[in-house]
Structures are given as C-alpha cells and as structure tokens.
C-alpha cells in the first residue's frame, strides 16, 4: 500500500546564537526517515530533547526542514512554496502538548472550535456550527458550555477542545505531540478511546508522539524510537517493547513506572 506520509533524510538545524560568540549549530533532526501508510498509527517515542517536537512541526509544515524531503500523498512538501503549504496544512493537524497555550484564553469555546472552519470559508454559519457542536459532543464537551471562555476549562477539557478543533477540518493526518502526557490516566484513556473510534470510522492516520512507551505500545501498530535527533530503532510495537535492540529503548522501558510488588501477603479468602 502506498504510504500517505513518507519521510526521507529529514534534517533540521537550529543556529545557536546566544551561547557563544561564534555561531554554533544544533542538530535537532539528523536524517530521519520513515513511512506511514494511511489509516495506521505510528508512535514516535524518545526522551525529552530527542527532536520529537521538531519532527512534528516540520511534518505539520509549521517549520521548514533544513534538508531532506517528505511526501504527503505523493507531494513533496519540503520543496513546496508557502502558498501551496497553506492549502496543505489543514490536512495535517498538530495537537500541541500545552493545551493552555494552544487555545486563545479570551475566546469562547465555540469561537475557538469553529475557527478552522471560518478560515476555510467553505461552509455557511449554520453548517459550521452544526459540525462543530457535533464534534464537541463527540469528545465529551457539552454544547451548553460553548459560550464560556476557554480559560474556565480544566486541562483535560482543553485538550479535548483542541482535538475537536483539529477534527473539524477532517484532517488526513493527526499528529499528537505529547497531547495526552499532561493528563491524568482516566482522561488519557477517555481521549484515547475517542481517537481510536475516530480512526476506525474515518480512516485517519495518527502520528503519536510521546515519551511513554506503554501508552505508545497500547495505541500504535508501529513504534519508532528517537534519540538525539535520529531514529535509532523502528519496528512493530510488540517487538520493540518485548525485545528492544537499542540502549535508548531499554532506558525508556526502564523508566516506565510500575507498582512495586506488594509487601503485604495476598488477602486470604
């Protein structure tokens, strides 16, 4: 099957100007290559600073890569002009890690959720609102909250609002950049279920970026492990979790919190 997203040797360098007098460069992405087929979920796992978020911004066309190419539905976006990218961006949606910063604090919930559709300008006001309310309800936000400011929402509600907002555009690829990491377990599970349902019904492709290997194994078919801007290991989820090859993967596995074996004897019946 033709991959919906193919990344080849993607490289991103940042100029570090403030640290030293001579300009230094920081290699955030170092020839990253992978491919995702439509409707699949790829998890990109790595410790903080490994270049995951840079990769997300590059694929969402929010930052131009320094070198390398990536193809979305056969179109090379690394070489595309800004005017073309503006038309592509709505199809590749990025959910940000910090939901408080991703939503305009002074806007109402409805204004936030409907903004992408207003920008598209294709639908009339009624259709826009109907679709937005449908999606808000889908992620579990009641329609009667729509006029309240986003600042009144809890963290989990905000992240769900951000997801509903991205979904109004019906994107082909949804990139979740640590989107669930800041939430507590029950909310994580709730949102994960909504996402899995959506994937089943709409055939959406997910790029799930996280530092949490167990969460990644739970949601994704395939895992790519990143370390220092490179993909060091890539394979099916079960293989990566059960039988890791690379040290970085083992460290991530070791960092997964587990309950200690109970010091108390098992309850007697």
């Amino acid at each position: 099957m033709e991959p919906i997203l193919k990344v080849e040797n993607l490289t991103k360098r940042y100029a570090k100007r403030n640290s030293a007098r001579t300009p230094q460069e920081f290699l955030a992405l170092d020839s990253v290559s992978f491919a995702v087929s439509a409707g699949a979920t790829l998890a990109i796992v790595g410790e903080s600073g490994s270049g995951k978020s840079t990769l997300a911004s590059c694929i969402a066309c929010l930052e131009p890569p320094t070198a390398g190419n990536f193809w979305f539905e056969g179109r090379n976006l690394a070489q595309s002009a800004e005017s073309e990218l503006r038309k592509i961006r709505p199809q590749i949606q990025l959910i940000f890690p910090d939901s408080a910063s991703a939503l305009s604090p002074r806007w109402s919930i409805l204004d936030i959720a409907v903004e992408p559709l207003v920008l598209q300008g294709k639908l009339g006001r009624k259709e826009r609102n109907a679709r937005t309310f449908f999606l808000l309800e889908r992620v579990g936000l009641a329609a009667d909250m729509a006029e309240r400011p986003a600042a009144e929402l809890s963290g989990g509600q905000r992240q769900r609002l951000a997801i509903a907002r991205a979904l109004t555009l019906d994107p082909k690829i949804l990139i979740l950049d640590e989107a669930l990491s800041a939430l507590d377990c029950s909310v994580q599970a709730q949102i994960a279920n909504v996402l899995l349902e959506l994937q089943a019904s709409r055939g959406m492709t997910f790029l799930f970026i996280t530092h949490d290997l167990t969460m990644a194994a739970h949601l994704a078919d395939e895992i790519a492990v990143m370390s220092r801007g490179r993909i060091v290991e890539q394979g099916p989820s079960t293989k990566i979790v059960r039988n890791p090859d690379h040290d970085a993967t083992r460290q991530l596995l070791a960092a997964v919190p587990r309950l200690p074996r109970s010091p108390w004897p098992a309850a007697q019946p």
Partner: protein
Amino acid sequence: MTRRRKIVFWLFVLGGLHGIVLCAGFFAPYDPVEQDRINPYLPPMHLHIVDAEKHLHLRPFVYASRLRPGTFDQYVEDIRQTRPLKFFVAGAPYRLFGFLPARLHLFGDGKERIYLLGTDAFGRDQLSRLLFGGQISLFSGLLGAGFTLSIGWCIGAAAGYYGGWRDDMLMRLVELFLALPWLYLLFAVRAFLPLTVNPLKAFFLIIAVIAAVGWARPARLVRGIVLSAKERDFVRAARGFGASSFYILRRHILPETSSVLLTQAAILIPQYVLAEMTLSFLGLGVPEPVPSWGNLLSNLQQYSVLVSYWWMYLPALVMAPFFLGYLGLASALQESSDAYKIEKRSLGSLA
C-alpha cells in the same frame, strides 16, 4: 474597589473634566480674546452670599473692584456696587464643539463683568482663557498620543512579526529616535518656518513633531508583545488551519497589544499636554491671542508678573486634576493587565 470599577471611576472623572473643557464656550462667561483694557491684572473676585450689612442674598454676588486710592495696580472691593451672578444668560457668541453656533452661557453678564479668576495684562477674563486654552492643550495631547501610538503600533507590529533584517533596521531607527533631544529638534523644525505662522499651522506643527519623536517607545513595547505572541501555540495552530499572516496579525497578535496600548495612551496624553505647554511657554506653540495653557503661562516669563499676580499660575495648577486622572487610569489599567497575566500563568500551571 475592583479593578474594573477603578477603571470606570477614573474614566468618569476624566470624562467630566474633559466635558467641561469641551463645552468651554458654555462654562466660560466671556469671549477669551475680548479685552477690557481699563481692568488689567484684576485679582479674582470673591463670591459672596452675605453682604456688608449682614443681609443674606439668595443669589451669590460679587462686588465690583476699584483702584485703591493712591495706587495704580491695587484693587479693593467696592461694597456699594454688587454684581449678582445671573445664570443661563445670553452673551458672547461662540461655537459649541467647534461648529454649533450658540450664545448661552452658564453665567456672566455683558455689561457688569465678573472675573472669578481675575484678568490678564489686557483685561481678558482668565477663567474664559483657561477653559478655551484647555481645548487646545488637551486636544493636542490627545491627537499627539493618537498619532504616536498608531505610528508606533504599525512599526512595532511589523518589526516583531516579520523579524529578521526588517526588525534589525526598524529597531536601530527606534534607538536613534529615542536618543534625539526632542525639544531642540523642535526648535530646529520651528526655525524652518516663517516667524509668524497662523494658529492652526502651529497647532499641527506641534502635533507632528510630538508624534514624529514619540513613536519609538510604544513601537518597542508593541514589538516585544508581538514577538512573544507569535511564538504562542494558538498562533501556530491558526497557521496550521491555513491562516494567512494578515489574519494571524489581526485576530491573534494585535489583540494582545491592546492593554499595552491603552496604558501607554493614559501615560502619553498628559505627557504630551505638558509638551505642548512647554513649547507654547517658550513661544513656539500656538501664538497669541489664541489661548493655550502654555501661552497663558508664558506671561510668567516677566518677573513683575511672576511675583505680583498669583492668579497667572492657575493654568499650571489646573493641570493637576487632569494629570491625576490620567495617572490613576494608567495604574488601574496596568493593574488589570498584570492580573490578566497572573491569571494566564496560573492557568498554564494547571495544564
């Protein structure tokens, strides 16, 4: 007081003060340029309700003044002549708000003149000149601040949003303008113009120079806010929805600058009123006989006036409530924007 009520309070105070000046024609008893040459430097007349014979009057009145025998500039009250205050009388014609022809005055009578704040060297009523002068001084402050902020806003937003070499270039320009000694620059600009210019030209000259020099500071502030706003995730998210630069500036970035602009306006307006007063005091502003607070004060350049006629200081004193109002408003606005920042910060930590 909550901060919203504080802002409303100060707006109310300022609205009242400006309303009085705006309706100067009604509150002023006489035409500000009308002379009464036989009464130069007449001290303010006192309002009475009890006369010399201990009779209570329902209508407040003043006594006419006459020269103290043997002097040429000392006046005493002439208790034989009472001049009752008549309210809502027709008097000198004026134009309300600059265009509505009217004759109605709060008080004052054409023949028996009442000088509540005294007169100047030509016997012109100081109260009327003070009120009309306020129109020029306050309007130049408001207009100057308006121009300054709009220039500063555009340049700051452009520099912050587009960044790169444009930012570098504009910020060097800002530094250059911050370093200019504006008063002497103004002298130089004034020197280019003929000795006598008409009041309207002089007025716009003042505003142009104030705006040309003052835009640098607000530009720098706006640039800082735009720089931080454009890195916020909701701005990047909007770009992800296919938004254009113009849309992002209009809907997401520029609204963030509004609280700084309002605070700056409240700080700049009184500063520019003072600038106008300085210029007119030095004779570079609006020329006589048109009154402005600055050229009313310029009489004080004569030593004899400085030491003898205290009511000539009044234009400076009258500034105080205006300044107080603007500073109160500025601090109330600042407080609210700080609170807004704290709100946002606590929100961020909840996520």
